[in-house]
């Protein structure tokens, strides 16, 4: 995320460090519509991600969920869990911001394709919604998984069942030419242009 962020803004590549706070800046969409969007990059560290999600979820017009396509196989449970938390959040469901799942690090040979990631996530979220809604209810009576059931009951979970638009896109912050090369994220830019 931290690599994509300055790339989108300035076109330059920057070395990054694990962040402990958010960074935000205005992004000028390079199209005729010349819209302005503020990009906010949230830290991904597991102890921080929920906290920052809470802070910014209400203001989000759109959400870009960045996935590491290389480590996906290993981390599929964690990724699905976080995505689940984003999706069942009541504020998010109310606003239904457009969701883009950006499958990053496509320049590495072992990267999984967006289709595969979509299938895996759907399967995992399918299981999660069962386990989460079966968890013991919370202390003051409200259910932990939220009364919202993700997708339609009875049918297997599918991203098209969500109230918001979901798209999958492949991108690469480093580009196929290596570290200093231009990033390969036209899909991301096009989607941002649509949103703006």
């Amino acid at each position: 995320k931290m690599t994509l962020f300055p790339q989108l803004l300035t076109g330059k590549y920057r070395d990054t460090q694990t962040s402990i706070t958010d960074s935000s800046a205005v992004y000028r969409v390079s199209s005729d519509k010349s819209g302005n969007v503020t990009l906010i990059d949230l830290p991904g560290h597991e102890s921080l991600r929920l906290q920052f999600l809470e802070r910014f979820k209400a203001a989000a017009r759109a959400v870009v969920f960045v996935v590491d396509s290389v480590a996906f196989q290993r981390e599929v449970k964690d990724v699905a869990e976080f995505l689940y938390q984003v999706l069942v959040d009541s504020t998010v469901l109310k606003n239904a911001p457009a969701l883009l799942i950006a499958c990053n690090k496509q320049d590495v040979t072992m990267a999984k394709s967006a289709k595969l990631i979509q299938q895996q996530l759907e399967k995992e979220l399918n299981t999660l919604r069962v386990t989460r809604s079966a968890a013991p209810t919370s202390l003051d009576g409200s259910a932990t998984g939220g009364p919202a059931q993700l997708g339609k009951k009875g049918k297997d979970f599918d991203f098209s069942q969500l109230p918001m638009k979901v798209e999958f896109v492949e991108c690469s912050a480093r580009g196929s030419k290596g570290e200093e090369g231009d990033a390969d994220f036209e899909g991301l830019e096009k989607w941002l242009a649509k949103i703006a």
Partner: protein
Amino acid sequence: ERGGNNSFTHEALTLKYKLDNQFELVFVVGFQKILTLTYVDKLIDDVHKEFRDKYRNEFQQKGTLGLLNGTFDFKDDFMRLLRDAEESSKVRAPTVMKTFEQSLKSQKTVKCMIETRGEKPKEKVKNKKNKGSKKEGTEAVAAPGKASAGDKQPSAAGDREELTKDEILQKNREEFFKRHMKAGEKSSKSPKPEAQKEKGKKPRVWDLGNSNAKVLDYSNSATNGSAEACPVEEFDPDTALGDRNREPGRLYDLEYESDDEAEEEKVIQNPSKPSAKKGGLGGMFGMLKGLVGSKSLTREDMDPVLEKMKDHLIAKNVAAEIAVQLCESVAKKLEGKVMGTFTTVTSTVKQALQEALVQILQPQRRVDVLRDVMDAQRHRRPYVVTFCGVNGVGKSTNLAKISFWLIENGFSVLIAACDTFRAGAVEQLRTHTRRLNALHPPESHGGRTMVQLYEKGYGKDAAGIAMEAISYARNQGFDVVLVDTAGRMQDNAPLMTALAKLIAVNAPDLVLFVGEALVGNEAVDQLVKFNKALADHSMAQTPRLIDGIVLTKFDTIDDKVGAAISMTYITSKPIVFVGTGQTYCDLRSLNAKAVVAALMKA
């Protein structure tokens, strides 16, 4: 939330960091652990100041883009600062030595000086070692009872080794005369009261020292020995049953609205307090300044508020050390931060504390038991959960509740009775098993018995029973194995070893520590010792530690929910279940925001 401690050690390196909360920067300096460099703190402060002044514009005006686009050519400045710091630390030694002589030696009383003579040879040996390693001797901590600051110690070391014994005696005699002649000249307060204490060696008077033991006997002779010393309370079965019939899921009302109102009142009251303290016209302006305009927070501003918050937390049953550390880290996080307009110190501190508490309660990784059980099911092996804790916290009761929950979700459970010590432990579990099977008969689950008890009676080795139970479960196709262990005090070394052995040998998937919500400061001790025992007695590289916490007897505390904070702070592991009663349905999961709200409520 653990920002209180500002150094970190990893292998051979030590890292020290400093936060700039105004511009949200972190300055980190790394150095080799074996070197004790005294100039590190000063260096980091200087670097911080220089960097901030130099690039202040870029931060303020351009924000994030400024950071991304700006080039920060700080290397030369940094090398210069480093050189300065190194030189200053070397130069400092001789000059400080003189001041040390003047200030400290003259402050010592006769008694102190007599002591030091005996310790001087010890110090000399230590100093020789220090000299050999050519480092600043911050290890001259061997000088006890001396009131001087840390950086005067190296000079003390350097001082001593240069004088021979005769010279020392002479110097002491000189000092002695000097002190007597310059009675009031040295303006340090400490020699005076110390000298007075020396002269007046009065016998200590204990309050009841001279009186005989009769006065000390407070026992009431009338009631002593009789069995009804305290009035027996009427047992009211109705109220007891009434509680059981209450609607499940209803624990307590948390009204967020009233919370805000209370806070508003406090906001109005608090600005008047600092003005009252300062007094006079300056106080009035200070209050106004606090309300309007941006001012950066200093330690002094935050201290009274933090004190109050710390006491409030302790009153809510948070362990004392945890409360102190929490307040420290909040202070570090807020120091130097610029407050917005119309926000008071109290509200900023309260909000920061609230965020820190929520973050503590929301764990790094949420433990989803059902998900993990499904995984284990796929691999055709049982999911093993071990319950450990001190005596009487509710392990067996909550084990039964959890097995009920698992059965409701369609998993078959094997209960391993590894409590071979407590009388009736096995019978208790047998009763639970019978009840659960009655509630979920095999017919309604495709002919499978949902719950079974694996027990081998009393007095046997718990680890062995656990191992047999797990293999039995694997053969019979049970989904989950719940291992109940005997309660044990954390100080009881042989029992802790036995528990560690059980866990190390059987490698359970989940180790749950069961703790009651009533526990206060003990929670810290219990968890630390349990984790330590598990880590010490495990042979593996990465020992199995406590993976989660079950907080029991939550219905007995009203809103004094501090135990939750203490436990999660110590272990950094989540609270997986909360037990709120003695029936099977009294199992909840933790709602971090509700607990923090209850905690912060006045």
